[in-house]
């Protein structure tokens, strides 16, 4: 089956900044691709090209089989877009916002009205539907924005950092909505800075850095790619540390890391649960008392660090200026008001 979203070698420069440096990706129908990367990596620019908002300097893209550059208006009737800025009109009510979007999707005013009510009910906004969006909380606005993207039941959806700046409760609620959409067959391209979010929602992850896709695969495959698992042991008595390192040595695939203060030893291993069982028996045989032991698989944070050579956070600070140029004038300042900084701190 042809991919629902396909991009080949997209390049876009803004002055000296190469925002997209040959991005290629494809999203099979009915699946979720998570575009993961720090601010300025090129995630938003990619979404803007695929949703017809921005012309690439070169490259091709199709959405639902329609060429994005040749037939942008046909693409627009097949997609829903929801971004991190909750693009709703503050001075219209929730109901009026959705109705307007419906009419602009060329629905009859009666259909637009009916669809607006349906969506308001689904997103638990019925009670607030006749209040202006200005009075809504951040989470409610984001829900309204997502509802606006769903007005025509688009087969392909683009969600650009849908939960950035939301509190954990609202984030979870939004995740559930997104999972429902995917269950029903929507193809989804999701950008996120949150590794946890990509891990939970996406079938496939593309890690983006400096305008390029630097890794691609399922979360598990990416984790495996950077080296396998490791055993972590916390011994009860600090005096046992040396003995424990010796006990672990036969299983280690690399040098052990020892933290004296926390009495923690970490060694890379291979062989999964069986190794863990062997290690426990070995420690027991030597009468080493343990407080905690576990088999740890690398997190996506580790993936990012090992792929890019720098942590996601450090990159975000250094490259923020690049991404800003890809947004409409005046937007960058708002990012901070929206609590982006706060969200980042919590999740990183």
């Amino acid at each position, binding site marked *: 089956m042809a991919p629902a979203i396909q991009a080949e070698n997209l390049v876009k420069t803004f002055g000296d900044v190469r925002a997209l440096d040959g991005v290629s990706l494809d999203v099979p129908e009915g699946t979720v691709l998570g575009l993961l990367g720090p601010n300025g990596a090129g995630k938003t620019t990619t979404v803007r090209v695929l949703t017809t908002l921005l012309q690439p300097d070169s490259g091709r893209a199709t959405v639902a089989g329609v060429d994005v550059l040749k037939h942008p208006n046909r693409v627009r009737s097949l997609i829903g877009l929801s971004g991190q800025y909750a693009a709703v009109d*503050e*001075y219209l009510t929730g109901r009026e916002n959705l109705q307007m979007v419906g009419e602009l999707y060329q629905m009859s005013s009666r259909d637009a009205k009916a669809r607006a009510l349906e969506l308001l*009910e689904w997103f638990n906004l019925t009670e607030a539907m006749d209040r202006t969006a200005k009075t809504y909380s951040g989470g409610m606005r984001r829900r309204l924005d997502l509802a606006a993207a769903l007005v025509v039941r688009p087969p392909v959806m683009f969600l650009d950092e849908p939960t950035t700046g939301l509190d954990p409760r609202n984030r979870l609620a939004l995740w559930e909505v997104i999972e429902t959409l995917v269950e029903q067959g929507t193809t989804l391209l999701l950008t996120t800075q949150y590794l946890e979010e990509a891990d939970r929602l996406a079938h496939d992850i593309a890690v983006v850095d400096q305008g390029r896709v630097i890794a691609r695969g399922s979360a598990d495959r990416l984790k495996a790619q950077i080296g396998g698992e490791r055993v972590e042991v916390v011994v009860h008595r600090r005096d046992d540390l040396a003995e424990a390192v010796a006990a672990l040595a036969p299983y280690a695939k690399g040098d052990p890391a020892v933290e004296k203060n926390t009495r923690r030893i970490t060694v890379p291993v291979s062989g999964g649960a069986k190794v863990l069982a062997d290690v426990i028996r070995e420690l027991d045989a030597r009468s080493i008392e343990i407080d905690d032991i576990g088999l740890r698989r690398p997190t996506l944070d580790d993936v990012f660090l090992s792929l890019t050579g720098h942590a996601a956070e450090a990159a975000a600070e250094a490259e923020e200026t690049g991404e800003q140029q890809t947004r409409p004038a005046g937007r960058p300042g708002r990012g901070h008001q929206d609590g982006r900084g706060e969200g980042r701190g919590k999740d990183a």
Partner: protein
Amino acid sequence: MTTTATEHAIGHAVPAQRHGIAATLHDSWVVAKRNLRRMTRIPEIVVFGLMQPVMFVLLFSYVMGGAIQIPGTRANSSTYTQFLMAGIFAQTVTFAVAGASAGIAEDMTKGLVDRFRSLPMARSAVLVGRTLADLVQTAFTLLVLAVVALLVGWRIHDGILKALGAFALLLLLGYAFSWIGALIGLSVRSPEAATSAGLIWLFPLTFISNAFVPVSSMPGWLQALAYWNPFSATVQASRSLFGNQIGPVDPAWPMQHAALVSVAWSLVIMALFSWLAVRKYRSAAG
């Protein structure tokens, strides 16, 4: 978020059924409706839009009217009010620039322009809808202003039809200018900048004209500028149509053919700036 989701989420996208002009008109109307609704939700904008011209009418007729002499008359605040009103009306309609530029700049920063651009709607509709809503606001402002002017002694002398003709010329100029505002709104980085950028050049434009003082009182080099100012033509044409012209019309060619020049300027400005603005909207809004 509830289990009713199943039936709602996915299906087939609705194909666009309207094409060409019909689509543009429909989409523009939807956007205009939205902007008019906003005006009723933020009445401050309309109220402050009214206060400025009303204040100008009162200040100019009472404070400065006694000092400014119209050729062929003695300085007198009542004759000055007659002379002044066409100028104030014209200045008021050009201030629609600020409304359009600030409104569109705000839509840009709030991400609404992105939303609109991602929808299968006519490319010009966001701007047409905005300028049409501004036109309605301008017409309302003119109406209120005319009532205030009548209260301070302004009169129409040549009948209601000609006066309506004058208002039509004024609104046409205002509509043309709101396209300049649309372009400014798409080009600057914040609504605040858009407001200043929308207003700052209007002061020299409206003052180097026949709006507040007779052009013959200016230095020679400035007179040519004032005569060919698009703004002056509309002021002269509506001043004549209101029957507020005192003494003979200035012999300069654009003043002698003011109505024609006014319409021509408005159409040229509208054509040029709507083309530039729609082009900007299509491509550079990212």
